[in-house]
């Protein structure tokens, strides 16, 4: 079945919904999503959204932009970071005006709290910049945007999984999707397509990410020749619940929580004397790993699954109840402890992709090192790389990224479709997707995906994790290649049409394998340590050779790398000390 729209948005988290709100006012817009929109992973974001409102203490957008650049270890495109910080203020007011129930100061204004790497006056000390709604800020953003979409009568196609993007003559013509309820393939022809499919943390064994975070947008684009930018930079959040990976918000430390090793030492004093527990995430995650390796984890056996304590006992029940109720609930549910009484056992958890589909500041997808624009193709949110996060994202900047760049992309699309020609697409555009699905469901005997998925996650966790070296990353590339070969034989056990979640899992696994390969290959090539990419064999940042974005092209079974310059037009790169 072929549907005709002006605009198709794939993904319904914060970026997709914001873009939909903008685009739908001026164009016939369809939002396709594998999940019902309110299930999107934006809803799991906890701590806050930063904006230099200055409601609690003096703050400036310029400081926010600088922190973002420094936090990203200078791999951030600086004009983009400035736009992010400047537009943050109106973005937060806009969300509030649309009904978002932020926590309030005594005088009724939006309350703000401290967060890692966000500082006053270019690094003097932590600043209250994160606007928040308890520890469910993402949930409230998702709810508010969905509410606004209802108000504005946006058209949703819920539980449709994307399989392919239709590109002809450097122009996007639409997407091919499968409707989960019926198993039917659909073509959505459109003048403009926006990918807002979120992250792909499910390539790692321990992750804060949802099952749905399988990088469908980037994988689909990569298979059609679009490069992926800075894929070697993957953020491990310092504090996931031991074993489960469930996120324990940085807001716990923002409110005063302290990381401690087995001796009860506040070990961040040694790694980040100025910002302590509120250093950027890459630094805190490495510090935890270093403590554990040195036998200073709580068990003290130096094993990969040893852990440290996040101590929030001194915050008091009242603060925990008012400002961190969900965290308290998670601890009670999954650990059987009350964080008011006992420290939380935590370990870094795979959390956020800094890299993704390369875009400009309007969300337009760029297909090479010359920044050639692909007409009608857009991306925003975690699946995109603007790049405002560089080599390491600051906490709260992801929600901000969704809102600012989701909105910008939606606005640009609304203009673009005015002069763009209607996409003419025939049924043959779905041939490749149809062939793929037929192969998986042809009833032949083949392995199931479960073991391949587990092996992929273990490989990525152990070999392309917080600390990396050439030998391990090469092994990861080889192992992922072998898994991709095995994947070709995978068949579903379930061959029925109605709501075939077995098929969905196999599709998602294919996407994760492709992105795992790209991530491992890009990481192996970058011979320096920068932000979240920490190499034991190249321990220093090397601006001369590596102050550049990587572009990884997936070409069959190989990954070709190219590079492009970083915008450093505002601040000269300096050593990153906190």
């Amino acid at each position: 079945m072929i549907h005709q729209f002006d605009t198709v948005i794939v993904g319904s988290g914060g970026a997709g919904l914001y873009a939909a709100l903008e685009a739908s006012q001026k164009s016939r817009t369809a939002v396709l999503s594998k999940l019902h929109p309110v299930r999107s992973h934006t809803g799991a974001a906890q701590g806050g959204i930063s904006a230099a409102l200055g409601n609690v203490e003096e703050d400036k957008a310029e400081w926010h932009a600088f922190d973002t650049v420094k936090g990203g270890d200078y791999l951030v495109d600086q004009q983009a970071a400035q736009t992010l910080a400047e537009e943050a203020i109106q973005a937060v007011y806009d969300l509030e005006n649309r009904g978002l129930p932020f926590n309030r100061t005594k005088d009724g204004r939006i309350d703000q709290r401290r967060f890692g790497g966000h500082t006053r006056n270019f690094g003097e000390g932590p600043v209250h910049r994160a606007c928040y709604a308890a520890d469910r800020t993402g949930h409230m953003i998702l709810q508010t945007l969905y509410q606004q979409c209802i108000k504005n009568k946006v058209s949703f196609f819920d539980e449709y999984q994307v399989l392919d993007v239709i590109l002809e003559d450097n122009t996007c013509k639409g997407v091919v999707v499968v409707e989960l309820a019926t198993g039917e393939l659909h073509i959505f022809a459109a003048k403009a397509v926006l990918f807002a499919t979120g992250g792909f943390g499910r390539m790692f064994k321990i992750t804060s990410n949802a099952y749905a975070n399988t990088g469908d947008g980037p994988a689909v684009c990569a298979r059609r020749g679009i490069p992926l930018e800075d894929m070697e930079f993957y953020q491990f959040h310092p504090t996931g619940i031991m074993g489960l990976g469930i996120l324990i918000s940085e807001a716990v430390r923002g409110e005063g929580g302290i990381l401690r090793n087995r001796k009860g030492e506040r070990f961040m004093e040694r790694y980040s004397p100025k910002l302590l527990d509120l250093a950027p995430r890459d630094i805190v995650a490495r510090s935890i790993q270093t403590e554990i390796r040195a036998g200073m984890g709580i068990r003290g056996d130096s094993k990969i699954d040893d852990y440290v304590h996040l101590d929030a006992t001194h915050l008091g029940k009242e603060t925990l109840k008012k400002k961190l109720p969900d965290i308290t609930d998670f601890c009670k549910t999954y650990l059987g402890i009350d964080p008011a009484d006992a420290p939380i056992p935590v370990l870094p958890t795979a959390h956020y992709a800094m890299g993704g589909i390369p875009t400009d500041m309007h969300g337009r997808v760029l297909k090479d090192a010359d920044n050639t624009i692909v007409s009608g193709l857009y991306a925003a949110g975690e699946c995109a790389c603007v790049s405002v996060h560089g080599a390491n994202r600051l906490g709260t900047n992801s929600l901000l990224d969704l809102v600012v760049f989701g909105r910008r992309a939606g606005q640009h699309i609304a203009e673009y479709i005015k002069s763009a020609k209607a996409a003419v697409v025939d049924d043959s555009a779905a041939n490749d997707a149809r062939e793929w699905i037929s192969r998986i469901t042809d009833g032949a005997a083949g392995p199931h995906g479960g073991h391949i998925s587990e092996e992929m996650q273990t490989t990525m966790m152990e070999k392309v994790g917080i600390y990396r070296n050439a030998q391990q990353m090469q092994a990861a590339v080889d192992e992922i290649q072998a898994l991709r070969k095995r994947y070709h034989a995978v068949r579903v056990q379930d061959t029925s049409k109605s709501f075939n979640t077995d098929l969905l899992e196999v599709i998602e696994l294919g996407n994760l394998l492709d992105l795992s390969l790209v991530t491992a290959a890009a990481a192996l090539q970058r011979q320096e340590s920068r932000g979240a990419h920490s190499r034991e064999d190249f321990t220093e940042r090397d601006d001369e050779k590596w102050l550049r974005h990587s572009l990884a092209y997936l070409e069959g079974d190989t990954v070709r790398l190219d590079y492009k310059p970083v915008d450093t037009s505002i601040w000269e790169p300096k050593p990153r000390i906190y």
Partner: protein
Amino acid sequence: MNIILKIKRYNPDTDKQPYVQEYKVDVQPNERLLDALMQIKRFQDGSLGFRKSCAHGVCGSDAMRINGKDGLACKTLVKDVVEKDGDIVTVEPLHHLPVLRDLIVKQDDFFNKYRAVQPFLINDEKMDRQERVQSPEERLVFDDTTNCILCGACYSSCPILDTKPDYIGPAACVQAFRFIADSRDRAKNERLQMVHTSDGVWACDNHFKCTQCCPRGILITKRINQTKQMIKELKGVKK
């Protein structure tokens, strides 16, 4: 530990009637029921259908009926279920909604009722680069209702819906209250009028099943009763 999951199954492509299938699973006591379901799906039977996403109780995908009680599979620990009811666990899809496949229900009715209460802030006053002011006390009045993740557990648990399928249900009432009680909203009276019907808040008969099962701890019945009280206090309300 070994547990047995008795799962109610149905595939419209092949089954005339739903049936129960048993699976034996080896799980850690601390694991979630969702982990047990995933183990079945990935290593025993790929055809088992259920929704899932965040796996820690914030997205609302995996609401189902576990040993007769509605809740989230990812917020239910195996040991808690076993401690209470033994090592045979029954799992069914949510009630009051048509089954699409196994544990997957068609959510249209639920979401249509949610949309019908106009779940969005109504306030046309223009703001110029600033926030609306709201005191912490005003904000606190509707705090718990903003927790709602629209999982549908309350809708399944509500005995009123057994006999009165047009009742908008607990979740829609919660969403109505969320805006009625928000000091920034300008449509309080219209909203009260909207739920002032026999299929609205008046259908609720204080069974408290929704409040007991809500995985987000919302005091649903209390909010419905507060809404009823506000309707009574509102002059000129017509039934």
